[in-house]
């Protein structure tokens, strides 16, 4: 069941990766309506690399659009990007160790690559405390990757807390989906 969910999530993610700029990739346009538009423009987040990767837009899942990038090759374990956690836990479970190890190896072999581990939490309880719980999960994944050869300065850990749920239901299945750390690379 989990694998099925992963597979579905994965294909959705890949679809997003291969297509031309979608809403997802446009970055966070922030509109300041209180007067000083100039300063808000200045703070507008950068969009990362969306112009370099414009593959075929009509058939984004074709392997030709992924060739050469192991991070986006669905047959490569590096295309798996999520680590799931039990309630109140930041322990990286056995089933996710191969994914973590593969990314650690990739970073070890590509010292110039920097990436982000994004921690998440389920919706229950305080938003700020959940932000800290998500951070702890991201830190746990980073620790595991460092033990396997990644360098600390290659990995930034951040948290989205409960703010960016993958599943929006209010049940254990959804909460499990949201207790998660995602491995993100600059050109994703």
């Amino acid at each position, binding site marked *: 069941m989990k694998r099925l969910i992963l597979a579905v999530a994965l294909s959705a993610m890949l679809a997003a990766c291969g297509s031309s700029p979608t809403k997802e990739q446009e970055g*966070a*346009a*922030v*509109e*300041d*309506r*209180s*007067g*000083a*538009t100039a*300063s*808000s423009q200045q*703070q*507008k*987040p950068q969009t990362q690399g969306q112009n370099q990767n414009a593959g075929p837009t009509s058939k984004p899942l074709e392997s030709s659009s992924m060739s050469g990038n192991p991070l986006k090759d669905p047959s490569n374990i590096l295309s798996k990007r999520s680590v799931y956690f039990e309630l109140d836990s930041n322990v990286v479970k056995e089933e996710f160790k191969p994914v973590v190890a593969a990314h650690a190896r990739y970073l070890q072999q590509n010292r110039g690559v920097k990436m*982000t581990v*994004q921690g998440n939490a389920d919706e*229950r*309880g*305080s*938003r*700020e*405390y959940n*932000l*800290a*719980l998500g*951070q*702890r999960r991201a*830190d746990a994944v980073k620790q595991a990757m460092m033990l396997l050869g990644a360098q600390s300065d290659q990995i*930034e*850990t*951040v*948290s*989205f*807390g409960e*703010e*960016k749920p993958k599943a929006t239901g*209010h049940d254990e299945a959804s909460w499990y989906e949201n207790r998660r750390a995602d491995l993100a690379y600059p050109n994703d």
Partner: protein
Amino acid sequence: MTIQMQFHAETMRNIMLNLIRTMTRTLTVSLLLTAGAAGAAMTIEIVGAGANQIPVAIVPFRAEEGLAQKLTPVVAADLTRSGLFRMVDPGGMNPVPYEPEQLNYGQWQARGAEAVVIGSVSKAADGRYDIRFRVMDAVKQTQIAGFVYFATEGQLRLTAHKIADVIYEKLTGDAGVFATRITYVVKRGRNYELHVADADGYGAQSVLSSNEPIISPAWSPDGTRLAYVSFEQKKPVVYVQSLVTGARQAIAAFRGSNSAPAWSPDGKRLAVTLTRDGGSQLFLINADGSGAPQRLTQSSAIDTEANFSPDGQSILFTSDRGGGPQIYRIATSGGAAQRVTFEGSYNVSPRHSPDGKSFTFIQRNGGRFNVAVQDFATRQVQVLTDGGIDESPSFAPNGKIILYATEVRGRGILAAVSSDGRIKQRFTADVGDAREPAWSPVVNK
């Protein structure tokens, strides 16, 4: 600008033997307000009422008919919404009293009014409105208060709130908070907006719009700036934004996550949660972004959700250093932290009362998250709500109301509860989910 008001006052249950609590009164007041910039209407519903509702008659002021914004309906709505007043019908008096000598006290007493508010509006020489009103004691037949305000047309609503503040303070002994504002986040689809509205939900304006989450807005002590956390840089970053100029500055954007801003009472510093040294720890930073962060806590656990005491000497925060999350107190100058919550396994989101004698927080009981208040001296805990999914409580500046976020039928709404738990209000935005509320300080403007 349209204002529709509906009053349904009913549901009286008489329980014969308990005279003090004889009446459980459910009063629903819907204020359907078409607001300006944000196009958002906020409906406020009141559940419950004070033990003793003070009967007050608010007589329409002389010449307020012609105003773009009539004053007395706003005053009456404010007082009614507080749950502490009962409006006595002011109609049918002949003559309609505008001055004390026109009052027939016997008639007002017969209607049960303890106080009568009268007043008048005229045009001052400088073009502003001259608004004068008096609060009269209908029983003692004396003046309780009398004030004159000069206001432009744009200040009429604020003036009405200030009049309601005077009446509230004179008749209850506590400061009124009608002339204050609230901030909150509205989520509509994938869009997030930071709103600022009057305390009655009127005039909501969006001060920031983003397609990434916004959380944890906090008012500067002078009410001119908001600190908040925005995810627009694909990670949590703390910003400070001026409500006067709209200028905003990222004041904590360090490696890792930056969150949970809390202002010092002098407005010069903020406590924030940073992960730049590993783990989530409390730091003090300057509100203008200058200088290096000064680390306040040194633990291997989560330390977050700081809140300064009103005297600035200490900080309450959430930490799981003892296992589950509990509330701790640390001196602003650093040192050892003391645990202050002991009931239950999950206590989070502490906020001091304005007098510094108690704090409100969220307590989990059997999977339900409710607003509670704990007294510092007695350590006594009172759970005020039973919503089960309540979050982010904060005190009104008079310490009498706690504003918080909850959900009704899966939709995020704001709610308020009196600090004695008797009166509950719900604020419902017309569209989207409202969350992360914070009440402004009292500001003289």
